[in-house]
């Protein structure tokens, strides 16, 4: 039932029953979606016998921080968190810069050659990262940047969708007259871009920034091949290798996972609107 009511009349008992049933069903779905994460975080605070208890409880019987202490002394988890944060922030900055410049130029300086270049960018956007990451690895190797954050960054300097997103936004929301008026007043092209265009793009740049940050933060295959020393792991790689190690201690594994999970959930809940906006526009690109 997707239609809004035709008028403001009160819902009939039948409609109210349907709404109630819908809510019950949706709450059950939400439980399935959230419970794995909730239980994981709660396991992190449990004692070993508490973890094994059936049914699994959402709130630990006696909360303990032992798992966190153990995992922080067993692994360089904080170091991995720092590597991931730095990588994600640098990647976000690079993608915002390259996307805003290229998106603006492709939108406002139309010409045959530029349209062709933009077409090439759109075409390469179809190719998944996994297809070309081996040659890209050799690029990083040639620069001597393996096992460094800079090496990781090489894979995440540009985002085709970002260029596309900014181009569409410039076309839709920045009129030529505005730029012409600034030119008549004697403004230089760089000044116009920095002082007029970028501030007007705050909304889409925010959405793109959140997308770029999460893309780098959750990257797996690329850091897996580029960062192969314990010192240079991102938190995803470190955690994936830690959990295949000989430790089967569920409490410690959960604690390590919770340390990684909680920041991204926090950031997501703070920036939910930008994120949803970014993903939603990505779906309407056709």
């Amino acid at each position, binding site marked *: *039932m997707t239609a809004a009511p035709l008028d403001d009349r009160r819902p009939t008992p039948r409609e109210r029953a349907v709404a109630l049933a819908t809510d019950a069903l949706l709450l059950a779905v939400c439980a399935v979606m959230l419970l794995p994460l909730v239980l994981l975080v709660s396991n992190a605070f449990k004692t070993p016998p508490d973890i094994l208890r059936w*049914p699994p409880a959402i709130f630990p019987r006696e909360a303990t921080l032992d798992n966190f202490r153990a995992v922080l002394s067993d692994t360089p988890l904080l170091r991995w968190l720092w590597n991931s944060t730095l990588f994600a922030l640098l990647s976000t900055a690079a993608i915002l810069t390259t996307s805003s410049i290229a998106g603006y130029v492709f939108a406002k300086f139309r010409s045959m050659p530029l349209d062709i270049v933009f077409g090439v960018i759109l075409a390469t956007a179809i190719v998944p990262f996994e297809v070309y990451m081996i040659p890209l690895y050799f690029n990083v190797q040639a620069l001597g940047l393996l096992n460094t954050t800079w090496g990781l960054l090489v894979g995440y300097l540009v985002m085709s969708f970002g260029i596309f997103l900014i181009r569409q936004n410039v076309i839709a929301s920045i009129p030529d007259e505005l730029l012409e008026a600034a030119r008549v007043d004697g403004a230089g092209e760089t000044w116009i871009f920095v002082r007029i265009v970028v501030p007007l793009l705050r909304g889409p740049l925010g959405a793109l920034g959140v997308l770029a940050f999460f893309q780098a933060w959750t990257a797996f295959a690329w850091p897996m091949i580029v960062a192969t020393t314990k010192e240079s792991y991102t938190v995803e790689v470190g955690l994936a290798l830690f959990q295949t190690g000989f430790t089967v201690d569920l409490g410690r594994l959960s604690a390590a996972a919770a340390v990684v999970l909680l920041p991204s959930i926090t950031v997501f809940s703070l920036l939910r609107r930008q994120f949803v906006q970014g993903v939603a526009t990505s779906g309407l690109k056709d």
Partner: protein
Amino acid sequence: MKSNARLLFVIGALLPTLAIYGWVRVYPILDVLNLSMHEWNLISKNRPFIGFDNFVELSGDPLFHEALRNTTVIAFGVLFVTVPLAMVLAALIHSRTGSRLAGFYETSVFLPHVVSLVPAAMAWKWIFDARLGPLNAALGLFGVAPKAWLFDPVLSVVCLIVLCSWQALGFAVLIFLVGIKNLPTSLYEAARLDGATAVQSFLYVTVPMLKPIILYVSVVTLVAGFNVYGQAFVLASDAQGAPGQLVRVLVLDMLENGFRNYRVGYAAAEAVVLLLVVLALTAIQFGLLRDKGARA
């Protein structure tokens, strides 16, 4: 003079970005095509050109066949779970738009799509765990014998489909929600005046009107499914990381050939196969979209 300044700006601004783009996207894509026709062991200066030999060898490689089969099953499994479920959920959530819970629904369905892949996969690994996991314990209540979910080759693929669908669902729901919100309400009013029930207007109004979006979400889901790697890495390796227990997927097989067996050309050929799959899916999407446009 004025146009000179503009030309200078375009060149100065765009050149660095394009140089980077060429170096980290265009060149590697061309290079993977080139490498796929060579034999190279990562170290030797010698890279003989061998034409399509790598592809011929792939066609008879049992490990590659296994990887391709697993990956295809996972990709289509995720598609068939995610897309219908996401449409129903989007319609249900949309029907509760005014409700105070609507925001909560959207957020909780979307959250698994955002959180880091490895911790999320670890949560499911615990759920599926044969001895300690709550899934076997819960099934036990109904008299179902415990199963070794992650050690059985068929069940572990099922587990991967569950994990990947759980992650993909939020994205699909979000896109469908945007699509449904953009549909004209007059259609639903007309359907209602004609006596259509809610289920009927979902099946005969919502679904057909969303066809382009369904197509888009399906292709995105399939492409993501063909690139599955991290999920398989976490879920299907046992506590000792024994490689025998892994569900072999394409990206894993490719990385193993490239970096463990030192066969870069061969790995590049696998990457090219992956590319062909993605191109075929995209071509089908555009083909079906054009069909629809021609009819309208």
